[in-house]
């Protein structure tokens, strides 16, 4: 029985535990919200779910052509690399940007019924994961074409998906609260994502940065401030079986910072959410 006022006795430092319990308790609602988004998105469309695949495909073709014109680098798996980059980037970018507006855009529902508000953010991320899984079907013919047989490296696939969602959500935990106060936040996030799209190896390989024109002493800094560079390289290796070529210490820092952002985001969200909904 829902007894709304019994505050759980979990200290703020353990906010992720509290969020985890809420997600478990309301998992049927989470699934429902994800289903709602899918239904609405493909409602009244002829191609339906096909769009979730066609959109990244179109982008891949665009960047493939662009890259072929601009660079003479030879990546044997170029279409596959670009497609994976775009898919994982969308997971991050959309978890972050849709998460940012999740509270504000659902104001009507939030003002009528109480349930843990982090569900709105998780549902956006979950929806992106469903989309990503659908799009991964396109990868199969590419794998056949390149005669790539998944090796043990394939374990990087779920790892990167989880870490990427955690990064996007972790940031959205902060921005979604700010967005209830100032609508500028969503525009800042949009611009930030647009710039970082080009600064991240989404449609080019990481080695163009690490062994390119950037002095090597800066590449560590680059990898540190841009976790997505690492995760996109990871998901590529997961399928191609190529070594990561990222120092292990850098991996620790990247994964550590993602977990820290997620953790701090959870704490911030749990602390501020009750006051933030009054701004809606």
């Amino acid at each position, binding site marked *: *029985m*829902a*007894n*709304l*006022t019994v505050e759980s006795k979990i200290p703020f430092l353990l906010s992720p535990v509290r969020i985890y319990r809420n997600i478990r308790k*309301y998992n*049927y*609602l989470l699934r*429902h919200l994800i289903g*709602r988004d899918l*239904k*609405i998105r493909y*409602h*009244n469309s002829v191609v339906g779910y096909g769009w979730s695949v066609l959109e990244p495909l179109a982008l891949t073709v665009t960047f493939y052509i662009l890259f072929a014109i601009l660079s003479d680098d030879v990546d044997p798996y170029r279409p596959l690399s670009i497609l994976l980059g775009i898919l994982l980037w969308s997971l991050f970018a959309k978890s972050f940007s849709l998460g940012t507006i999740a509270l504000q855009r*659902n104001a*009507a*529902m*939030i*003002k*009528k*019924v*109480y*349930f843990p508000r982090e569900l709105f953010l998780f549902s956006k991320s979950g929806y992106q994961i469903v989309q990503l899984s659908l799009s991964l079907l396109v990868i199969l013919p590419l794998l056949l074409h390149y005669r790539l047989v998944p090796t043990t490296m394939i374990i990087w696939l779920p790892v990167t998906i989880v870490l990427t969602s955690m990064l996007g959500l972790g940031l959205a935990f902060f921005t979604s609260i*700010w967005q209830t*106060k*100032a609508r500028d936040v969503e525009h800042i996030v949009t611009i930030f994502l647009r710039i970082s799209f080009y600064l991240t190896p989404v449609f080019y390989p990481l080695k163009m940065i690490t062994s390119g024109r950037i002095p090597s002493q800066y590449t560590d800094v680059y990898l540190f401030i841009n976790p997505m560079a690492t995760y996109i390289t990871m998901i590529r290796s997961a399928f191609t079986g190529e070594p990561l070529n990222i120092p292990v210490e850098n991996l620790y820092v990247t994964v550590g910072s993602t977990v820290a952002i997620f953790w701090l985001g959870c704490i911030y969200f749990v602390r*501020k959410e*009750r*006051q933030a*909904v*009054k*701004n809606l």
Partner: protein
Amino acid sequence: MTEGVAINIADVSLDYPLNNKGIGLLREILTGRVKKNSTSLYRALEKISLNVKKGEVVGLMGANGSGKSTLLRVIAGIYAPDEGSVKVRGRVTLLAGIGTGFQLDLTGRENIMLTGSIYGYSRMEISNMEEEIIEFSGIGEFIDQPIRTYSAGMRARLGFAIVSNLEPDILLLDEVMSVGDTDFRQKSRNKIEQLIKGDATVVIVSHSKSIIKSMCDRVFAIEGGKIITDGSIETALEYYESLGK
């Protein structure tokens, strides 16, 4: 919480943040703090204390902006009080205005499922109640059409039908008894009476004297976020009539 009490509100105060602009807003976002007792806060509820017994029907009356809807939201757990405490025993549903945050592109049937799950009911429970809800709403064959094709009256009826048929322990009604045509109003009144008989606790916000008089056990008048009457129906109605003068 004492036995037999459904809602226990003790010294509840609640502030709304007012819109800051420019640098003040930036500071507020970055520090996450609103200066207390400054012009940037609006006190919507001031030390409200109220006990509602199980099965009781309580009415709230007052001018627009007096804090009635805010109080219902606090009971529903939507807003956390800044001071004081709210204890609620049982499943609460709040019905305010038209619809319950319907998704316009989904059908009526899909919205029943979604609304039900938002209120914490399982798929099975909702399926069992679905036919009853559709029957009660009188939407008929339109139930499989998207909500955006519904008229305002149809949306309001569906909203009421869902929330009242979910059989909540505590039902909070904010200005919803006057939706739909005469027929539906009568029907919703009967439904509420039936819920009350079934031991539901009800809090009604209404501007209709007849609803208040015929349904409520106790009525409170609210002004400026404070309860200013003692619960007797006559005093509250007297106060309410004096407002118009």
